[in-house]
């Protein structure tokens, strides 16, 4: 038997007046995946997440969470989904623990859920802030409290919309360690982020969205392999030989950068340099990262 996908999105369209925010998005995310949704501002990432969460209605198309349609069967779908909103929103009337208890209660969970709330507080380093009013928390603490709020009802699928925007490095690493742990324990994680290196190190699969369409959907590895070109940075004593000029990509300071179609070209370049009697003082091989892939894909779809 096939397992039910964590998220299934079929032909989802959404427009706001004349603006087509989403134009026929199809996407399937399997249970247990750590998935990144990337795209420039205005690509439709948040619209897609809002529709998935029931905060907006799809213009057309279907979305389901673990097999439950987000419109027709919204109660079940929402119970299975936790969403961390992008903005730092909070209820100024309550402390962290009260707020988490209420949030779990909205999903039908009662006192039996309290140990889980303690676990979330502990995991996010909020235990000593449990009785602080939300107003009194720092920005990073508020961000953690938001994540705790999304997790209060123990959802098997967690969506994080730009969770690390404006969060310092230490907190960011702590958050990712916690989210990684959730993922290892079976929670499906879907993430939108502007930090490409986060997506690259954390996510097994990536979808890139541009102007309401998915322009790339593949494993992170495959996407990285897609950009074969590596770069060779050289510090030379002497000018670059004529034969190597076509490979030149740029120059900065003492360094000159060459494009490599394949790693084997390194040998050829070094041979040419030796033939021209140019001494290599330093050499770096630079691999493409997700940011290059992203820029490449976004550029090709202009």
């Amino acid at each position: 038997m096939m397992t039910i996908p964590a998220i299934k999105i079929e032909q989802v369209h959404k427009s706001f007046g004349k603006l087509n925010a989403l134009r026929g998005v199809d996407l399937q995310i399997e249970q247990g995946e750590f998935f990144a949704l990337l795209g420039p501002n205005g690509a439709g990432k948040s619209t897609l997440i809002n529709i998935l969460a029931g905060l907006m209605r799809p213009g057309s198309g279907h979305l389901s969470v673990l097999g439950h349609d987000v419109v027709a069967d919204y109660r079940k779908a929402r119970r299975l989904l936790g969403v961390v909103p992008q903005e730092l929103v909070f209820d100024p009337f309550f402390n962290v623990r009260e707020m988490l208890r209420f949030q779990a209660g909205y999903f039908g969970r009662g006192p039996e859920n309290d140990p889980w709330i303690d676990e979330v507080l502990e995991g996010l380093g909020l235990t000593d802030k449990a009785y602080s009013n939300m107003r009194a928390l720092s920005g990073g603490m508020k961000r953690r409290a938001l994540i705790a709020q999304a997790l209060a009802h123990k959802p098997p699928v967690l969506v994080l919309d730009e969770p690390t925007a404006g969060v310092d490095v230490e907190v960011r690493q702590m958050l990712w360690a916690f989210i990684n742990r959730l993922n290892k324990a079976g929670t499906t994680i879907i993430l939108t982020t502007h930090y490409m290196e986060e997506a690259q190190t954390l996510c097994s699969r990536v979808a890139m969205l541009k102007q309401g369409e998915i322009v790339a959907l593949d494993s992170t590895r495959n996407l990285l392999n897609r950009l074969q070109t590596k770069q060779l940075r050289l510090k030379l004593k002497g000018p670059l030989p004529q034969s190597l000029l076509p490979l030149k990509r740029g120059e900065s300071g003492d360094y000159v950068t060459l494009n490599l179609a394949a790693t084997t070209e390194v040998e050829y370049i070094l041979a040419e340099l030796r033939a021209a009697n140019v001494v290599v003082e330093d050499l770096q091989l630079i691999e493409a990262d997700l940011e290059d892939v992203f820029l490449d894909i976004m550029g090709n779809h202009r």
Partner: protein
Amino acid sequence: MRGMYTLFKKEIWRFWKVSFQTVAAPVMTALLYLLIFSHALATRLEVYPGVSYTAFLVPGLVMMSLLQNSFANSSSSLIQSKVMGNIVFLLLTPISYLEFFLAFLAASMVRGIAVGLSVYLVTMFWVHLPLVHPWYILGFALMGSAMMGAMGIVAGICTEKFDQLAAFQNFIIMPLTFLSGVFYSIHSLPPLWHQISRFNPFFYIIDGFRYGFFGQGDVSPALSLSIVALSFVLISVATLQLLKSGYKLRG
């Protein structure tokens, strides 16, 4: 069910945590009205035979406080969570629009009745009020707070900023409550204003509520209760339609 109950409980807590502002302050205001108006007018006015003006005033003030605070509870809670943005955490839950409505409505009724009852209990120290028809008193208290709770939900959803809500409150709710016969019997008004007052649903709430205490009023209490109940049903249907459509809440 637990989702709805949790939301109700949260709404109660929300006003109770700031009860100085949400309960004590309106009680204080009502007492000041009572003090000033009864001092100024008690010796000159007797609206119903055998009923002092001070006694006449108390049910009106109780009901006015009840109405204003039922309205304030749902409307200010909604506008606050909209402006702060934390309403998203409510919209993400499996709570249905009907449960949403009932939870906000019930919490508004609790606040309105709590304030009304407090005003009544405090005035009991120096004003003696009969209780001729307690069931009418209860009926109008429930209907009045429900109607205003629902109206508060509409206002909370439709307005986007605090000043818009304040306009709604000061230019619609306040005049309707003040001009509903809290401080006078509409029989004392010139004929034109007398007629206009009859289109004010608040007039029927105040009049019927007062009938419950004294056994006398300007119109039949059964008619009043029907009008108030009908108003409540109409407003509720409209509110539920708004919530169902997701107007200004879900895009």
